[in-house]
């Protein structure tokens, strides 16, 4: 019985962690290139979920098409967001805090725009998967949880391959280490950053659909990305494998805290973890040194 509960908690934690990882990857990707905390990422996730919801309910598309549409929609929104709110700041090399505040403004704007136009109602996705349950070692696990986890893993692996194996990926990594040098070597920075935001937005779309299916769709659902920041900090800001590991770790630890200690203390615990990491290991578990330069 005890082992059953343990396994159940572990699997639930991993599936939540998978979604955290999806969110953290998009957030980390932007952080690694532009070196600022993109607070609008949560709003893009929320919009991705609404796009998916519209496709699923209005056009009654299947799961694959909904996911694809939501990836495309959120990707385009993220690119537009960069163009309108960040690009001029980026060009005149404004302090990263200005970008952060601009991002915060975008988050408030988008969230309340949805609130004012669509309303604060909670929407549910149609049931794509019957609530099927498989039994693993005596504990029952929802198929959705397993699917979300595996898909998150596969998507992040795919991104990793893209970043390490393709020409564009190499350009992105060059931009991460030195933006100016990268542009001197003939990389079109605007295009590069657009691709980064497209990728980040795509991941936000996936995260939005999964979150929407697992829970519900509503204007403030993007606040869950607070957890993605924590995951990204744990794994080391700007590191993709770190975002994956941090997301999974946070998901599992949180689930254990809420089922063995108290569900109320879960968030307090997570935020304490965030502060502890920032103070003692600001580069995360695996991040490399990134002290603010003089």
């Amino acid at each position, binding site marked *: 019985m005890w082992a059953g509960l343990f396994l159940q908690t572990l699997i639930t934690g991993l599936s939540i962690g998978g979604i955290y990882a999806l969110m953290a990857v998009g957030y980390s990707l932007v952080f690694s290139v532009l070196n600022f905390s993109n607070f609008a990422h949560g709003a893009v996730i929320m919009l991705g979920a609404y796009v998916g919801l519209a496709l699923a309910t209005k056009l009654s598309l299947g799961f694959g098409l909904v996911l694809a549409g939501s990836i495309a929609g959120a990707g385009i929104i993220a690119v537009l967001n960069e163009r309108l709110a960040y690009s001029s700041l980026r060009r005149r090399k404004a302090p990263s805090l200005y970008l952060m505040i601009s991002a915060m403004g975008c988050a408030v704007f988008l969230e*309340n725009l949805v609130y004012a136009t669509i309303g604060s109602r909670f929407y549910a996705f149609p049931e794509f998967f019957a609530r099927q349950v498989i039994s693993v070692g005596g504990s029952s696990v929802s198929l959705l949880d397993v699917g979300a986890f595996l898909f998150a893993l596969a998507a992040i692996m795919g991104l990793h391959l893209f970043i390490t194996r393709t020409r564009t990926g190499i350009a992105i990594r060059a931009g991460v280490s030195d933006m100016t040098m990268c542009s001197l070597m003939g990389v079109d920075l605007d295009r590069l950053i657009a691709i980064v935001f497209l990728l980040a937005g795509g991941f936000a779309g996936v995260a939005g659909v999964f979150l929407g299916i697992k829970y519900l769709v509503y204007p403030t659902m993007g606040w869950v990305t607070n957890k993605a920041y924590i995951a990204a900090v744990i794994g080391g800001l700007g590191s993709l494998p770190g975002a994956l590991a941090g997301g999974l770790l946070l998901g599992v630890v949180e689930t254990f805290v809420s089922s063995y200690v108290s569900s109320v203390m879960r968030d307090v615990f997570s935020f304490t973890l965030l502060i502890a990491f*920032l*103070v003692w290991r600001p580069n995360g578990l695996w991040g490399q040194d990134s002290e603010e330069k003089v």
Partner: protein
Amino acid sequence: MDYILSIVILACINMIAVLGLSIFTGFTGLFSLGHAAFVAVGAYTSAILTYYYYVPFYLALAAGAAAAGLVSLVIGVPTLRAKLRSDYFAIAILGFGEALRVILENLEITNGARGLPGIDGFTTLPVVLVCLAGGVLVARNFLRSRWGAACIAIREDPVAAEMAGVRLFRTRLLSLVVSAVYCGLSGGLLAHFLSFIQPVMFTLVQSTQLLAAVIAGGMGSISGPLIASFVFIGLPEALRVAQMWRLVAYGLLLVLIMVYRPQGLMGYSELSRFFRKSGNPEGRSRS
């Protein structure tokens, strides 16, 4: 008339918190996304004192401000000692603010997420105005003191300031505590004006609003943020645009300010400058 009066009082209460954050962000150069937490501490401490223990209002107000100052040490000591990157600090204090809110939502004495109703309405316009005027006076003197000069030096260049003998950790911590005390005072006044407080009133959005007023008003100005906060609170209330659209416009405004006028409304100068013949009397403003 009552309605306009209440808007003015609300705006003034908000201005006190903005004034505090202006010392920390505008003059010391550290960004905070969690100062609403200090407002919450001030509000809850003073409200609990007058509500359950019948402590006199002014004493409770002072206790709220002091409690906010003390709580700021909890987050300030570890993060400021570690000399976090400025944006990491902003995220750390964001985490602190959210954690504090979750705690408030689950304590017995704060009545949880439902909030504390029926607090006595001690806050009147004269009280608020006296607090605001006193706050401005103290802030002005603080910024003209050695400590204030040290804060400004740190804002301009932390490394050079440290070389010149300014103690980074102590000065920054002092600035944080002072700003938290202002926020605590503002919280106490707020609680006894609205006679109802709820943890959800002190979220990240509120912290952003405070920070936005400081930035929109101008970093390194006292009057700028005060004007900005009055405009932010007063104007939409007075025009009574639908609550939701107000926040939409507010988010948009934040982006536009960052993109088009990052130095803010007043830049580094004060309102009083416009009333003097010589443009730069104190030699402190920088263009």
